[in-house]
């Protein structure tokens, strides 16, 4: 999907560009937060985990910046059509990305509790699951930047893999808890970590749906399977 033509009022384009830049920065921070939380978890690095928790503040501040920018854009530019859809999507995406940051922070917060205790097997699955969720976040922000509905669809398709991982980890942890009750605390923490990652996947999917709507004006769930997407529906 090509970038739309420039607005007659140049400042409008500048406003939109700035809004998109803030969201890109938020997304980058959330993605990085998730990666570092998982690294801290793997290496039992409580200090690195602390940094993830601290950095999350920055994401919260950026969300406020997006909110201000969108309110200004609506008040001053009265956007319509794709501009309007993009402004609304930006507002919602910012709040979802902020949630993704919170999940990464939540994962990081569990690292100190997991410092003691030996490896249990599901720990080896979490990094892979986290990597896919992180990729979804990365990809969906690319899709937003490029206004690319196809890429947004791709993000949604990957969510299945994350869900499959979650179900598999859930069952494994449950078995662990039943067989070795002394691992219950650790397993419960890991279960929450897995759940957090699963939610990140869901949120990336939500963002993908908003990107799709902003770019096309159609809901992804209603998207035509082949055939003429462009002709008006009457």
């Amino acid at each position, binding site marked *: 999907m090509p970038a739309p033509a420039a*607005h007659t009022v140049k400042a409008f384009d500048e406003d939109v560009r700035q809004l998109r830049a803030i969201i890109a920065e938020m997304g980058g921070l959330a993605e990085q937060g998730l990666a570092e939380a998982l690294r801290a978890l793997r290496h039992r690095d409580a200090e690195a985990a602390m940094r993830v928790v601290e950095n999350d503040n920055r994401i919260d501040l950026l969300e406020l910046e997006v909110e201000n920018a969108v309110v200004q854009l609506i008040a001053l530019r*009265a956007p319509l*059509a794709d501009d309007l859809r993009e402004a609304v999507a930006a507002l919602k995406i910012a709040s979802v990305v902020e949630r993704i940051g919170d999940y990464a922070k939540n994962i990081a917060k569990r690292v100190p509790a997991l410092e003691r205790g030996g490896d249990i097997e599901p720990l080896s699955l979490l990094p892979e699951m986290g990597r896919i969720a992180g990729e979804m976040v990365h990809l969906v922000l690319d899709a937003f930047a490029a206004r690319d509905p196809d890429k947004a669809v791709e993000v949604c398709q990957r969510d299945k893999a994350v869900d499959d991982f979650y179900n598999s980890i859930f069952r494994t942890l449950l078995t662990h808890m039943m067989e070795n009750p002394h691992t219950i605390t650790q397993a419960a923490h890991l279960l929450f970590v897995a759940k957090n990652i699963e939610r990140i996947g869901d949120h990336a999917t939500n963002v993908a749906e908003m990107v799709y709507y902003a770019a096309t004006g159609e809901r992804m769930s209603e998207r035509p399977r082949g055939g003429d997407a462009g002709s008006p529906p009457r």
Partner: protein
Amino acid sequence: MTTQAADAASSTKIVARDVSVFYGAKKAIDAVSIDIDQDHVTAFIGPSGCGKSTFLRSFNRMNDTIPNARVEGSITLDGKDIYSSDMDVVQLRARVGMVFQKPNPFPKSIFENVAYGPRIHGLASGRAELEEVVEKSLRRAGLWEEVKDRLNESGTALSGGQQQRLCIARAIAVDPEVILMDEPASALDPIATARIEELIHELRGRYAIVIVTHNMQQAARVSQRTAFFHLGHLVEYGDTRAIFTNPKQERTKDYITGRYG
């Protein structure tokens, strides 16, 4: 291109088919077909010079008054061809009233401004009935309370917004079926504009209303159907919400989002 924006439930008031309008050799409107609903407000939008006013004027044959203007194609009102030779044009303009961009009250009293139409069309017999029509029209136009004690003052002494409502009262007084408005609020401040918009909202359903406006927000607020014109062509016609959130045509999108030209 579809000519109908209506759901099947709403009845069609005006049907235009392949309408072209020329000024001398210049084609200002090019083969436009559209159905205007009875129960909805229809907005005409488009860049300056695209032919909105020209097309609007063809609905009550106001183009007849412009030398070397010529209309081709067919326009029917309730199924009857308005350009047929047995159409009474004075009668037509009473049925299809018009409100212009600049309020144009006659240099007469407020009362006379409204009473004029009903009187020449013989819609009121006697003073009492005429007074009734004037009051009813001014009430519908939302002006009664402001002018009821000064009906004998000149219409031109009113503020711009009041003058515009007076003109709407004047259009309403002859009990029209359709009201055409050509940028009725473009010379008014935001409060007066809001009053006109509220008025359009109240009049909707009683009259078929077509409004030309350059204010996209206004079109979005007051209309249920929007037609986008460009260079004499009807580019897109549809549900107002759809046009302003998800237009199908690139040219419509570029125009309403301010990316035009």
